[in-house]
């Protein structure tokens, strides 16, 4: 798809400003929706994010556990990641 360069530039800017806003936001991604209480419990384990605004996002591919995302930083404590690491280890140690 061809975009008008001006439109593209403005889209980029909006995208960037939105990203900036999202940086403040901490996302907890889990396979099932979490209650406010559960979320609070999870986030309180990470002092860095204790005072941040928290949002829950549902992604079934996580399988279990949760992923905390804040800006470009990710703490991956999901089953998906664990399986991923296991796969990698199995391949590497042949």
């Amino acid at each position: 798809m061809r975009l008008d360069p001006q439109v593209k530039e403005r889209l980029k800017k909006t995208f960037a400003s939105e990203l900036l806003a999202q940086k403040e936001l901490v996302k907890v991604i889990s396979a099932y929706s979490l209650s406010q209480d559960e979320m609070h419990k999870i986030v309180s384990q990470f002092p860095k994010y204790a005072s941040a605004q928290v949002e829950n996002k549902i992604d079934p591919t996580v399988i279990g556990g949760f992923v905390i995302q804040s800006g470009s930083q990710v703490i991956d404590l999901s089953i998906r990641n664990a399986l991923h690491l296991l796969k990698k280890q199995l391949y590497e140690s042949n």
Partner: protein
Amino acid sequence: MKAIDQYLEQIEREIKNSKLDYKTDEVGIVQEIRDGVALAAGLDKAGYGEVVEFESGVKGYIIDMMEDSVGIIVLGDYLTIKSGEQVKALKYTLSVPVSEKMVGRIVDPLGQPLDGGEPLPADAWNPVEKVAPSVVYRKPVNVPLQTGIKSIDALFPIGRGQRELIIGDRGTGKSTIALDTIINQKGQDVICIYCGIGQKNSKIALVSELLRKQGALDYTIIVSASSSDPAALQYLAPYTASAIAEFFMAKGKDVLVIYDDLSKHAWAYRQVSLILRRPAGREAYPGDIFYLHSRLLERACRVEDSQGGGSITALPVIETLEGDVSAYIPTNVISITDGQIFLETDLFNAGIRPAINIGISVSRVGGNAQTKAMKQVAGRLKLDLAQYREMAAFSQFESDLDEDTKKLLNRGAKVTQLMKQDKNKPYRLGE
């Protein structure tokens, strides 16, 4: 069955001892894929030169950082990458596995074997980009590296730790000089590295076959990024060769590295830079093309005993077009190196092989590294030959010459014949 039991035991043990530990990853999202280069948003805290991993397991290397995105050169198949997928920073700068076992092998710029042999275990991981040793760790160049080519050893001696450029048009015997030098290192306790950049795979096969036949493969490593490899790998190849050389240098070995050739390396880097939309300068090369080669060749050195006491001698090769040494890349590399050996098509066709132009070839530091005996023999040779060439051109129009000129011409013609040498037949110092 026993193996499985052991595995299970190990897993049980690990589960028992595991505690919930977490680490923070730095991630980004792929926005664009261009030829061999990916642009990704995010990766806010990743550094220049850091290795990243795509979802498919392909690795990349951050080479450009813009306001809100990074440019990554992809080390492998970039066609499997899709825009929108996640990239993860691996928190280390690009390194290659190095080991003693690499000697005699052909490897790619990531240190993986290309010769179909056994996988190479890593003794250590050396960073591909490394700052060259500083002044305090260096020793002057005063040990000779015999090339086995009469005219070079006599007129433009090369010392261990020197950088001597081999420059000339296509088909003037540049690679031949480099390969003869490798062949002549037999029994000299020198590790040789031949780094092919953008060469035909058939040529690499030819080189390895020649070295094997001459028994030179026992102390030689071939690093190859052929012309069918992505530009990113061709760009990395000489740095990898340097990283391998540094491994042996740290062990006190003398290493000879041949970069064949840096013109193609510059092309590869130009391609990557243009894809990254960096401003183009002269001949469309990016602004940092000089630094590209200077930082590479600066890594050639002879270090003090406290640093291992080894050396890296670099013989970069540059291909000129129509003998034009004033083009951008040739002038750059000439000014970086400690001298150049200039090969000419006319001489080559006149049967003077190696076709070295004695007038404009120099070795700026090698004189200190020449053996005494050689100095005595070769002392006046260069001047005599240069005078002869001048006089020969001049005397073509003059029929009657005085006795002195005739003598000079006679002697010059004889010495020129003496300097002729067949390829792949290097001479020892004694011969």
